[in-house]
């Protein structure tokens, strides 16, 4: 078996509020091989974002064991091995595009980053040559998300976590970014975990799709995607893709 990037054993997360205790994740078992692309798909409230945040050490699990890149999530985070892309690009409005991408290299208490890459090189990788000095408000939604992706990759992370990064974009932009993301993945060899609520996006991007059921959040089924690489958008019209999407939708209906 290939080395694992992330593994979860009986991971549960419970939130307590005045209205009682909510089980966001219930005994998740999961293993993600290094260098793979996994998409997390499920209805809202299934805990996909929570699971991603557990891997990123933003949320501590209530019980169970999580291992990221062979150690605790905190160690991976502190070693700057995790990149994270939010649904909102979360760019700093007062910094230019180049300064936004450079942010990860400036913070973290002055620790050295052996895997760090040149911000300009990453901007060119996401197709933003010539936009270094622009400010976020001058960019379109798709371009902002490209900046956020470049920023997530600049420290050279071995695990890239993406929380519905293209959820707020129009379909044309989203399709284009989907294709570009697969090229980025091929170019960097990073393990990617991608949360989405789009069946097509999940099936097109992932080497396998992890279906989560809601209330409480639990693993429903892990579906391998048999499509060949490199993937092109036209492949979404093949019978294999259609039947896969159909299968995912039928499972989702019971989640």
């Amino acid at each position: 078996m290939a080395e694992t990037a992330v593994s979860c054993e009986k991971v549960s997360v419970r939130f307590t509020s005045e209205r009682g205790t909510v089980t966001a994740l219930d005994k998740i078992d999961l293993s993600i091989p290094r260098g793979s692309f996994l998409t997390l798909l499920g209805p809202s409230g299934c805990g996909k974002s929570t699971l991603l945040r557990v891997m990123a050490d933003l949320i501590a699990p209530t019980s169970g064991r999580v291992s990221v890149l062979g150690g605790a999530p905190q160690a991976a985070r502190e070693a700057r091995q995790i990149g994270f892309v939010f649904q909102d690009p979360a760019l700093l409005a007062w910094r230019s595009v180049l300064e936004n991408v450079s942010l990860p290299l400036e913070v973290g208490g002055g620790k050295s980053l052996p895997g760090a890459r040149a911000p300009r090189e990453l901007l060119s990788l996401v197709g933003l040559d010539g936009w270094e000095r622009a400010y976020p408000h001058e960019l379109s939604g798709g371009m902002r998300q490209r900046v956020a992706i470049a920023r997530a990759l600049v420290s050279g992370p071995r695990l890239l976590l993406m929380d519905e990064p293209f959820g707020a974009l129009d379909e044309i932009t989203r399709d284009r970014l989907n294709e570009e993301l697969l090229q980025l993945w091929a170019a960097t060899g990073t393990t990617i975990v991608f949360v989405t609520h789009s069946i097509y996006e999940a099936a097109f991007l992932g080497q396998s799709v992890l279906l989560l059921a809601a209330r409480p959040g639990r693993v429903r089924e892990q579906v391998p995607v048999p499509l060949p690489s490199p993937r092109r958008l036209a492949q979404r019209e093949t019978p294999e893709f259609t039947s896969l999407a159909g299968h995912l939708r039928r499972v989702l209906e019971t989640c």
Partner: protein
Amino acid sequence: MANQAEPLPIGGFAEDAEADARFLAHKRWLAWRRRLLPLGAVLLFLLLWWQAVVQFEIKPFIAPSPVAVATVLVERFGILMANLLPTAIEAVCGFLLGNIAAISLATVFVYRKTAEEALFPIAVMVNTIPVVAKAPILVLLLGNGMEPKIAIAAIICFFPTLVNMTRGLRDVRPEQLELMRILSATPREVFFRIRVPNALPYLFSALKIAASTAVIGAIVGEWIGSNVGIGALIIQATYNFDSPLLYATIVVGSTFSALFFGVISLAERRMLRWHSAHKD
């Protein structure tokens, strides 16, 4: 691709020199209009005022004509400036002191909720006391020099900045804080790279209010126990029924206040180029 100096998010514009020229000419006209309209209104107002004084034969000690005010402005320029200087020093010192104190306390509030719960009600209480009531208290405490005036100007500036700065430092988008955690940023990095820049637009709205109120505070402070300054000159001119001097003093005080406001606005435009409110 758009050129580097001025990137535009949308491409594909056709070149049309004539339409461009027409558009620019219209923009220039609008810019001139924006400047000329208020100027015209002021001139018209001065003319009406002047004519009213002449036609209705209003006595100079009731209301002077604008010509009389202008004459005083020129002839007694030295006296007016000599009195503006202490007021300006008091206003600027009070402005600096009050805002520095407010920014420091706002920082404490953001990190220590207990401090906010304990101290904010006191700040509200102090803020409800009218300036004319604060002034005598401070004169009794601090004497007849510049100190009580500086203190009044500072107290007046303090509250708006405290409220705005606390909000600005706190109203950070949660994703940005999550991002900083992913990057294992230190608390100091989060403060200087996220919270402070985020608070700047809030801070400048407060500073613009403070710039004019600091001058008012200094003037009110001078009403009580002072023989120099714009405030003292106002009182003196009123008791002497010297209304042209009274009006001229007010013009000088207001001009200084407007200049102070202008300096802060200029600083804001310089420092907040990124802020969307200052987009063209």
